[in-house]
């Protein structure tokens, strides 16, 4: 009997507590939740979420403290993107969105008890404050929206202008170059290419050609592949094999095409062996270990390192040096150039690598491009001098009206940053 009485009393107490909880007034939710593109010239990854804060900032002994903002890409679940403090807050930017996809926003208001309760806990009976929070029902944006990706970014006007001017210079030099011979200064690393080919041919050993680890997206890799084509044309007549281990399958595919075309152009298509251009692995040091093994076992007479390189540069160049091969390197990776300069016989630095294709082929078209690049450098030097003069005048006379014009001139180059 006593047991039944205890159970009944417990049930009554629990029911009473539930009724008490249900009797508490619901805290108001924000209204008019909208989600819209931010209107900025971006790639469509940002949207602005706005809402109308609830009119009642205090409900009972609770006050409005902030908002929880959720976003979902239809039909996925909502994910919280922000916790905004402040009763008056009514806007937040959602970033990292995918352009043209449909999104919904959801906002909850958060009310915090004005007087926090405290409980006594622990051996010392410490008073621990408990923050009581009440969350409103969710207010959702009515219609899904899609952030808009822009086709043109005005912030990059400077880039467009410079590319157009530079292209015009190169096209004009190509036009004028057809009427006269063009001079190109000697580049020691490229003068030595014939020496390297001759040495490999005399010794009956292959040439090892490495195009770096940067992948096909890197300009240095593209330059390296062009040099490979010229090198193959020169070696084709001597039937000196070129081994090209790759760490990128796309680079390997492009190099096979280039080498095959080079053999055909040299009139020796029968000498093309696709097995000499092969993929090893895309792991940086796995690739290096394999190439080191090739150097030690195949004993190439000449090693070429052309393209973008990282930490593997010294390991490759040092191993090649130990085998006694003549080594020619070329890279625009400024952090790796010191290692190549130390361990290789010849090194093409930075733009010398890009100039190599024109130098080796002596093609009027490529030489004209090189001339165009040189004119571009003169323009850059002139702009640098003008910019430095402008900055100096602006620093000496900060209040003079020309100073603002000069500062605007400089900010044009820094894209207004």
């Amino acid at each position, binding site marked *: 009997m006593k047991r039944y009485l205890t159970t009944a009393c417990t049930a009554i107490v629990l029911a009473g507590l539930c009724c008490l909880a249900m009797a508490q007034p619901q805290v108001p939710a924000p209204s008019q939740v909208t989600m819209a593109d931010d209107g900025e010239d971006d790639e469509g990854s940002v949207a602005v979420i706005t809402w109308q804060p609830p009119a009642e900032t205090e409900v009972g002994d609770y006050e409005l403290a902030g908002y929880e903002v959720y976003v979902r890409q239809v039909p*996925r679940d909502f994910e919280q993107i922000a916790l905004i403090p402040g009763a008056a807050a009514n806007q937040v930017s959602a970033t990292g969105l995918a352009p043209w996809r449909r999104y919904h926003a959801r906002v909850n208001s958060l009310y915090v008890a004005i007087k926090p309760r405290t409980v006594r806990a622990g051996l010392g009976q410490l008073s621990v404050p408990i923050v009581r929070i009440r969350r409103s029902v969710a207010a959702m944006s009515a219609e899904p929206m899609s952030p808009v990706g822009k086709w043109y970014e005005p912030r990059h006007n400077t*880039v467009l202008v410079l590319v157009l001017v530079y292209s015009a210079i190169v096209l004009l030099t190509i036009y004028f170059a057809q009427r006269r011979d063009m*001079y*190109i200064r000697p580049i020691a690393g490229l003068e030595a290419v014939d020496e390297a080919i001759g040495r490999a041919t005399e010794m009956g050993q292959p040439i090892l050609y490495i195009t770096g680890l940067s992948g*096909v997206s890197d300009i240095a890799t593209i330059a390296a592949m062009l040099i490979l084509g010229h090198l193959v044309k020169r070696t084709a007549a001597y039937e000196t094999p070129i081994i090209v281990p790759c760490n990128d399958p796309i680079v390997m595919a492009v190099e096979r*095409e280039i080498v095959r075309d080079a053999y055909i152009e040299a009139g020796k298509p029968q000498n093309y062996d696709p097995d000499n251009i092969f993929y090893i692995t895309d792991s940086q040091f796995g690739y290096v270990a394999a190439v080191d093994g090739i150097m030690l076992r195949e004993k190439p007479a000449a090693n070429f390192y052309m393209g973008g390189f990282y930490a593997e540069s010294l390991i490759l160049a040092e191993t090649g040096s130990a085998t006694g091969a003549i080594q020619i390197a070329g890279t625009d990776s400024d952090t790796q150039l010191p290692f190549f300069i130390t361990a290789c016989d010849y090194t093409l630095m930075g733009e010398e690598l890009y100039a190599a294709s024109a130098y080796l082929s002596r093609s009027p078209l490529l030489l004209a491009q090189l001339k165009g690049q040189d004119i571009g450098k003169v323009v850059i030097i002139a702009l*640098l001098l003008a910019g430095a003069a402008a900055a100096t005048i602006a620093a000496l006379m900060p209040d003079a009206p020309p100073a603002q014009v000069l500062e605007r001139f400089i900010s044009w180059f820094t894209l207004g940053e």
Partner: protein
Amino acid sequence: MPEAQQGTELVFLGLTFNPEVLGLWLQAVLTFAIFSFLWGDNRVYKFAEHVFVGISAGYGAVIVWQQAVLLLLVFKLWPQLSAKADVTADHWVIIPGILGLLMLTRFMPKYDWLSRYPIAFTVGLYAGTGIPRIVPAYLLRQMGATMKPLVPGADVGWWVAVSSLVVLVGVICTLTYFYFSRPHEGALGVSSKIGIWFLMVAFGAGFGNTVMARISLLIGRVEFLLYDWLPVWWPGAGL
């Protein structure tokens, strides 16, 4: 393959192994095998090299299959195949999917010309998207950073002005070194010589900086051998 697994220990051919200890030994043996290259090319190094290359190639293949083929192509076309509920269909991926499949035509000599399309697309895409990325980063911002006041003023101290002058002279002289279409004689010759000095000073600083980073890698390996592996077989080493 282990015959049975008991708790944290592996039993293989009647012998009991602690996987952690086994892993430490494996790492140490492979480290010594790679270091044996200092003595010269040998079979132990060859073995370690082949293990390394094989594992990295296999691991790379698995990553490509899991992260690219399945996640970015198969599950986007057939979301029901994914174990995750929130994967949504995206049929646009069929375009890169077809381009990727065209690469496989390289195995068919009759149709291997088709593989030139994805190659052309990839090279063209990277070259095109590279311009708006590279021009501001490698050209414009560098130019902007070089255009600084060359004399001290209200907000510019002596040291800043001198530094700006050195940077400007260094940049201009280095640019003249890369001028190819004229002989490096006279003023151009002097300027390019100064430029190569600037380059060599920068390379020297870079060399020292990178060598220090490499030595820290060696220290990491030696620390592993001394503090992780050595106490396993020589508990009294006290290192």
